[in-house]
């Protein structure tokens, strides 16, 4: 008998896909990291945005080398990602994101929680580099453990209360890439933030 999919997983996939996020299923964090490298490989070189003559914030025009940022990873995991990235010719960074406000190719983050009904990833981003990673990359890859999926917004309340009560925190719900419809109500993806959003759903 075929295994039936967890309804939370199906709902999350359905809703995240509806907001033009791409959802893939992976075994663990290592596979999620490999997926991020794959995304980086497939995408066009980042279009680095001109950010001013006097501000040293990266170059302008098409990037010469692809760049991937993953500030949230443990030392060990980062070392692995960096090694594998280098082999493919990518620069992999885990800090100093302010120097790259003009844009990077891929940002890799880990979500604390997923909300199935809205297709949302919940990220805690008090660290400034982690925060910037999710904003200045062209493709954002988020690793989300299936075990952290909840059904709806109200099911996330306890968790949010806990982290917000701890002290200082920057928490983001992210559902799909940046979008606008401000010109004649025509939907355009990627006006300020990422142009692509990927969610790697992890078994563990």
């Amino acid at each position, binding site marked *: 008998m075929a295994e039936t999919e967890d309804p939370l997983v199906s709902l999350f996939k359905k809703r995240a896909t509806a*907001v033009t996020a791409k959802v893939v299923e992976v075994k663990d964090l290592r596979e999620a990291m490999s997926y991020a490298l794959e995304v980086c490989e497939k995408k066009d070189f980042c279009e680095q945005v001109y950010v001013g003559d006097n501000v040293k914030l990266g170059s302008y025009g098409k990037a010469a080398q692809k760049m991937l940022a993953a500030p949230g990873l443990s030392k060990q995991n980062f070392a692995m990602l960096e090694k594998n990235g280098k082999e493919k010719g990518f620069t992999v960074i885990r800090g100093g994101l302010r120097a790259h*406000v003009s844009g990077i190719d891929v940002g890799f983050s880990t979500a604390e929680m997923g909300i199935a*009904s809205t297709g949302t990833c919940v990220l805690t981003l008090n660290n400034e580099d982690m925060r910037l990673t999710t904003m200045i990359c062209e493709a954002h890859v988020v690793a989300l453990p299936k075990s952290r999926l909840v059904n709806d917004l*109200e099911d996330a309340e306890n968790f949010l*209360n806990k982290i*917000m009560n701890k002290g*200082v925190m*920057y928490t983001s719900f992210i559902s799909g890439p940046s979008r*606008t419809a401000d010109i004649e109500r025509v939907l*355009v993806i990627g006006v300020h933030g990422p142009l692509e959003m990927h969610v790697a759903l992890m078994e563990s």
Partner: protein
Amino acid sequence: MQTAANMKSYLKDLDEALADKFLRRTLEKFAVAYRAGRKAIFADINEKALVAEISASKVEALGKMEELYARFKAEAEKRGVTVHRAATGAEACEIVCRIARENNVKRIVKSKSMTGEEIHLNHPLEEMGCEVTETDLGEWIIQLRKEGPSHMVMPAIHLSRHQVADVFSEVGKEKRDGEDIAGLARFARRSLRAKFAAADMGISGANFALADTGSIGICTNEGNARLTTTLPRVHVAVCGIDKITPSISEAMRIIKVLPRNAVGQIITSYVNWITGANECALNPGGKKILHVVFLDNGRSALAKDPLCGKALSCVRCGACANVCPVFRMVGGHRMGHVYIGAIGLILTYFFHGRDKARNLVQNCINCEACKDVCAAGIDLPSIIQEIRARLNEEEGSPMESSLLSKVMANRKLFHTLLRFGKWAQRPVTGATPFIRHLPEIFMSGQGFRALPAISKKAFRDEWKTLKTSLPARGRYRLGLFAGCAQDFVYPEQLKAALEIFRAGNCPVDFPPEQSCCGLPVRMMGERQAAENIALQNVRAFAARDCDYVITLCASCASHIKNNYGQILAAYPHMAFEVEQFSGRIRDFTSFVRDILGLGADVFKKTGEAVAYHAPCHQCRGLGVIEQPRALIGETGEYKPSDEEQTCCGFGGTYSIKFPEISAQILDAKLSSFEATGASTLVTDCPGCVMQLRGGEEKRGRKLKVEHMSEFLARNIKT
């Protein structure tokens, strides 16, 4: 932004908007798409229950605003935030300017904030030499064009892609192609990223302020608010003090409705919760300099206002504009000063004052479409009527309004004048039931529809004779509330109803002391007249022994049912009579369908193609939706139309005040009915009959317009 100094120049502004073909087409497309999108996106949640919860939690929070503010301040300050409170817009601007000065700020990026618009925050900042850049795409476009927003969520909805391309070409000193909308957005991304990178200060709004953790919540699709609150070393959030909620639970409920109602999305791409001064590498301490400025500007006084205080529950989704038939015709620049739509008319009065609000608050047709979709369950049309009453009390009523209210409050005088009217109008009616050539002074702008003539004999003057044909005893004892339009203009609709009651074996009583329902004077803000008239009607029916009081006018029915209790709140000793009268009120159609249960045994099957216009006060005011369609189906073939629940543009005195808008709404409406292929158009309100039949008369009578009673009576089996 509406700034017209008087009604004449406001009307001129409205005419200009009506003549703007691009605007009309855009808003028309939007209205149709929004309606369909909204229906689909609410399909999986219990909208009414959620709105009721939001409404209750908002009212509770507004009741303890001071307590919540104190809690927020304490929690936020624990986390390194400076919390300010400004009594006025000027004070809020001063605080933000001071923060800019103290931190040596030169360049500022802003993410969308209606509160920022409310206090015109950019001006003083620019005057002190700061460069201020709006980063929301729509806001940036209108900033470059030096305009105000025309919608709270889609600020540049009034502009075409080519107008955007023009302004971007000028800014970028390079020609941009208007057909490439993605390219235009990309240009904004590039141009604004540089502004983000160089900014010293970011100014945002806030959708929520959570008292228990001192957090602010911001919803955004573009992600510009995230960059605004992250890149610059200083962040100032400006928000109304009404945005404080006890905890994240209340905010989560609002998030379930806000994006759905605003733009038909389940959730915005981003919801950000900023709890305290976060890490920021640019500052010596490594922490963001974070200020939250709460704006009062009349809010704490408004919160205590028993009738209008609910307006502060608004979550700024903009849905009241999205469904407004007037907005659909003229757009947001004519439907608000800063805040747009029904809530805009209200908040203009409270936040920007009488001068700005005087003309605007007249521009509500009272169709209740906004009330029906409001995320916070605000009774917007009632608050607008209350503001009209306050304006009359503060400034004196306009001559025509006080004259009319005096006449209407005196039933005998009113009815004598109406009877006299049928003689006075003779020279202008010819032999037709329409007024043909009214002198210009009465006819200004009214040429779009033929106005009906006053009937030769009023219903009340024939009652004695009519009564004899009715059963003395039967299934239900009915009282008949005639309303002025049918009593004096369309008595044939009431007579047709009597035939149906006879078929249903019901005796009918008609107390002659009854008068107008009072809605027209309430719409004009004539509080005392509305009260006197209501009293008169309650007394007229108080001694009568009836099971139901039937009315064939949807507006009378919903006014009596929904408003009499509040209008007569000052008469507690009459509470029982008021409750009894309004409780017994029933519209003709749902009575015939649900109570009498008349159907195929009474009506003959003709297969006639019939379209239906749902009067605003029937479908929304009374919640009667299915019954008229079912009744039509018993005899004819019901032809649905997408626009059947859209207002016909009548709105009583509205169509006299704003004839051009009324005419355009009517025209669109009739076209959609004619497209159904129906030969007959049935409705449930004499006011709608007047508007629709009058319009059809002008268009060449493609559709026969009838009241439901007339349609049913002529299809009784013989």
